[in-house]
Each structure stands twice: as structure tokens, then as C-alpha cells.
């Protein structure tokens, strides 16, 4: 039996503090039409509607997808807006929690959080433990090197070390274990004898270069993250065309048996957000006018 939905009370004070820690804003309401929770709901969705709150993962270390506004302490960004909009259309409040990204990919969330709108790429491997909605946007995976490096093309990375964030698809690509679904399109083969080194998040690789470390020749991240660092005068330049395009979707934990109701409802909401232009507007707001919500 699950011991209560979110909590085992330990000390009253701790709970108060935990509760105060991070409650997201309810977000802009969908406005038109009634919320999903206004109708009949059952299963996991029913429990969330009854609680009135959906607990959502976010890792605020990835601007512009997710970051902290240090004046208000609120989470902001593209993923955060999408999360808030989904919750608004469900008719519940959002409460954000912030474990490490690899905890999301590993599955077995123990219902500590219900949903992850964390720019998670759909792969065949992940599909074995996680459920995905339709993609809500697509990002190109971009190879980079530091400014003064001799590397000019993707083939030049042969025999070198490349830095990637932990548990990312970029790591899978280097190790030859990337299994994108057919909708992702073509994938460039990794150069021969390329080895990976990982740091906790993508940006740590870039920071490592900025602090004058040169432990690795390359860094792979989404083109949006790369563009952000270059705009901030990091000593980085892009190499070659994108190596693959990642379809990014909302994910759920397959360990929850009665999850189907929630997955279906959110999948429908994401499709609606594509159709009514909400996602395009959010993408253009956060990605400098780029609409990344359409397949290339």
C-alpha cells in the first residue's frame, strides 16, 4: 500500500517548510472550454483532480527551458509555461519539485511527482519504462568545440573526448546506444573512437571551457542551449550540421498502473496546444522568435 499520496508526516515543522518550498503559480488559465477535471475522471487522473494539485518535475538549470527568477523565486521558461498550461487545462494547481534529471529518466518515481515536462527526448529504450505524449517541440542536437580548437568537422572528433550532461541522449549517441523513434528522422553516425565524459548538466561542460579547462575537445547539447552560451560570450563555436533532431515530449512513470487516464488526457491537451497555436506562441517567446514546435 502506498503510504499516503505525498507525505509521511515526520515533524510538523518540516512539513510546513516542505510545503512552503516550492508551489508554482497556477499559470494562465486555458480560458475557453471547461477544464478536464470538471468532467468525470477516474484512475490516476481522478486522484490528481481530487487532490487539486499535480506535482511536476523541473530542473531549473536549463535556461530558456527552465530557470529560477531569483527575485521572485518562481520557476520560468518554456517548459515551465507548458507545464502551467497543461495544469490549467486539467484544472489543477502545479507544484514543482526539482530532483536530478537522471532520476526522471530512471523511472520508478514513487509518485513523488506525477508528470515531467523537462524536454525529454523520446527513445525506444525510455519507452520501456516511461510513457510519452506526442512531441511538444523538437530541438536539433548540435556539436561544438572551444574557439581555438583545430576541429573543423564532425569527423575531426574521431579519437577525442566529448562532454555531455548525465543521462542525456547525447551520451547515448556517443556510446552508440541511441534508439530514437522513427518520427525523429535521420541520425548522423558518431565519429570513430569517440569517448564521452559526463558532468551533472549540459551547461557544466560549457562552464568548464569558460573556466579555461580543456579536458575535452567537444560538447553536445541542444542548439538552443548552445546558442545561449555563444550569446553570452562563452569561447564556443558550432561544428557541422545538427547530428540529429530530438522529438521532446511530456513523460509519465510506467510504474503507476492506473496512469492511462492521465496520459491520454495530457496527450490530448498537447495536441490541442499544437492546433490552437499556444505552443508556437510560447516557442517564439522563449526561443527568440523560432517556432520549434513543428517537425523540420
Amino acid at each position, binding site marked *: 500500500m502506498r503510504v499516503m499520496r505525498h507525505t*509521511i508526516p515526520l515533524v510538523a515543522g518540516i512539513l510546513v517548510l516542505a510545503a512552503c518550498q516550492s508551489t508554482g503559480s497556477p499559470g494562465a488559465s486555458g480560458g475557453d472550454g471547461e477544464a478536464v477535471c470538471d468532467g468525470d475522471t477516474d484512475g490516476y487522473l481522478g486522484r490528481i483532480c481530487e487532490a487539486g494539485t499535480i506535482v511536476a518535475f523541473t530542473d*531549473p538549470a536549463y535556461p530558456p527551458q527552465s530557470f*529560477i527568477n*531569483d527575485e521572485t523565486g518562481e520557476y520560468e521558461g518554456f517548459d515551465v509555461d507548458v507545464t502551467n498550461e497543461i495544469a490549467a487545462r486539467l484544472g489543477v494547481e502545479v507544484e514543482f519539485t526539482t530532483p536530478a534529471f537522471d532520476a526522471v529518466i530512471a523511472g520508478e518515481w514513487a509518485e*513523488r511527482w506525477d508528470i515531467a515536462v523537462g524536454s525529454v527526448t523520446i527513445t525506444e529504450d525510455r519507452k520501456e519504462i516511461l510513457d510519452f505524449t506526442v512531441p511538444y517541440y523538437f530541438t536539433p542536437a548540435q556539436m561544438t568545440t572551444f574557439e581555438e580548437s583545430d576541429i573543423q568537422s564532425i569527423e575531426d572528433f574521431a579519437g577525442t573526448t566529448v562532454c555531455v550532461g548525465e543521462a542525456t541522449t547525447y551520451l547515448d549517441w556517443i556510446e552508440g546506444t541511441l534508439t530514437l523513434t522513427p518520427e525523429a528522422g535521420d541520425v548522423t553516425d558518431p565519429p570513430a573512437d569517440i569517448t564521452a565524459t559526463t558532468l551533472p548538466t549540459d551547461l*557544466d561542460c560549457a562552464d568548464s571551457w569558460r573556466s579555461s579547462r580543456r579536458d575535452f575537445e567537444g560538447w553536445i547539447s541542444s542548439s538552443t542551449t548552445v546558442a545561449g552560451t555563444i550569446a553570452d560570450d562563452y569561447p564556443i563555436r558550432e561544428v557541422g550540421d545538427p547530428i540529429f533532431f530530438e522529438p521532446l515530449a511530456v513523460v509519465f512513470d510506467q510504474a503507476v498502473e492506473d496512469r492511462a487516464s492521465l496520459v491520454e488526457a495530457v496527450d490530448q491537451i498537447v495536441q490541442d496546444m499544437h492546433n490552437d497555436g499556444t505552443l508556437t506562441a510560447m516557442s517564439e517567446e522563449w526561443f527568440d522568435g523560432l517556432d520549434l514546435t513543428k517537425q523540420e
Partner: protein
Amino acid sequence: MAGGGVQRVGTIDEIGVPTRAAILDEIVAAQRRRRRWFRGQFAFVWIVLVGIVGVFLWSAGRISWEFIFTSGPYILGGAGVTILVSAVAMVMAIGLALLGALGRLSVNAIFNAVASLYVSLVRGTPLLVQIWFIFYALPQADIVLDAIPAGIIALGFNYGAYMTEIFRAGIQAVPRSQREAAQALGLPERLVFRRIVLPQAVRIVIPAIGNDFVAMIKDSALVSVIAIQELLWRATRVGRSERQLLAAIAIAAVVYWILTIIFSYFQDKLEKRMARGDR
């Protein structure tokens, strides 16, 4: 020196030799000067060294004032969680340590074995592993703890084991004669421990406990891996968001340092007070 001479020349005052009081004053003043000179040099060395480190960080890290002023308060806000987690975990650790020490000294084989296994297991595995275990492994047994309780339990459990050994040593350090004297006075066995041995043991272990608390404040940074938004978590997230990771970590380091300085000050006072009994 003047007394009992062969021939009386005059009083000390008359010949201008300093009085005993004046000599003492002079000695005290000299000591004070020396102490002031020492403190001055001490402070000077600290300021210079900290200044060098600061300038180095400044030039190497592209640290912006703007970041420190806008994000500093947000990072500082994490100190409350750090203190709460450390303090509650410390209370738990002290309770566990007392039980553990009694177990380790017990003649009851079962009690002794349980306490010994606890100490061996916890001291034999990394704290980070224990934190992950409590957060990720316990839910497989349908025990789902929120992040903050999980972090507190992990820290308290870990420090309880180390402090068990401190308590055990403290209890054993109370002279056997104290116990014998109490027994001779006819005190019941339970009171002998509670009223005679324990208070003296506590005084012996206070410095070591204070030391552990300082270590705990810093080790609490490890619970940032299970989504507890304490000092280091806030620093790394804001640092990455604003691309000022080095500055953010430096701010967190300074806050940890200040927290331990403040605590050490109170610990010093407590120890001085408790030492008053030693004559």
C-alpha cells in the same frame, strides 16, 4: 627586596623606586600591548590572505557585482533550509548516539549486536550512498518519504553512528570511582547512570559534538541531490541559470563559512561555561 637591609636609606617613595602596584600595572600594560599587537597581526594576516583569494577569484571567474546583489539574497535564503536540516538531524543523531552507546556498552548480546551492526554498517558506507538509498530504494518497499524528511533521516542516521563512538568513549572516560562512590551511597543503578555518569560524560563529549555539528552543516550540502533546495542547490541552480556558476558557488562557500564561524563562537562559550566545574 627593600626590607631587611643593613642600612635604611629611605622609603621606596622617597627614592623614586616604583611601588609594587606600579610594577604590576606596568606588567599588565605590557601584556595588554603584546596581546593587542598579536591580535593586530593576526587580523592583518587574515585580511591579506582572504583578500588575495578574493582578488584571485574575481580576476579568474568573471564574477559580476550585479549577480551577487541580485542573486545573493536568493542563495542566502537556502541557509534556512540548511540550518533546519542540520539542526533536526543533529537532534536525531544525538538520540541515536545515546542509544547506540548504551548498546555498545551493554552486556545484553542482542542489544549490543544491533548497535554494533548499526555503527559498522553506517560508518562503512558513504553518506551519499545512504542519502540515495533512503530516497530511491525505500520507495521500492512502499516507504515514500518526502525529500526533506529523507535528507534529515539520512544525515541523522549517519552522524548518529559516528557519535555513538563519541558517546561510548565519553561514558567510559568517567572515572570508575564515580560510579563506585554513587553505589556506595546506595543510589539505585538507573540513577547512577542518569545522575552521576551521564552528566559528566556529556561534558566530556560536548567539544566533539560541536565539531560534528560543524561538519554536519557542510555535509548537508549532499542532500541537494535529492531535490532539497538548500544553500548549495540554490547556488548551483541560479549559477547555471545566470551562467555565473563560479560566483554562485563562491557565495555558498562564504555563507557556509560564516555559519560555522557563528556556531563555533557559541560552542566556545558553551565549552567555557561547562569547564567552570573543572577545578
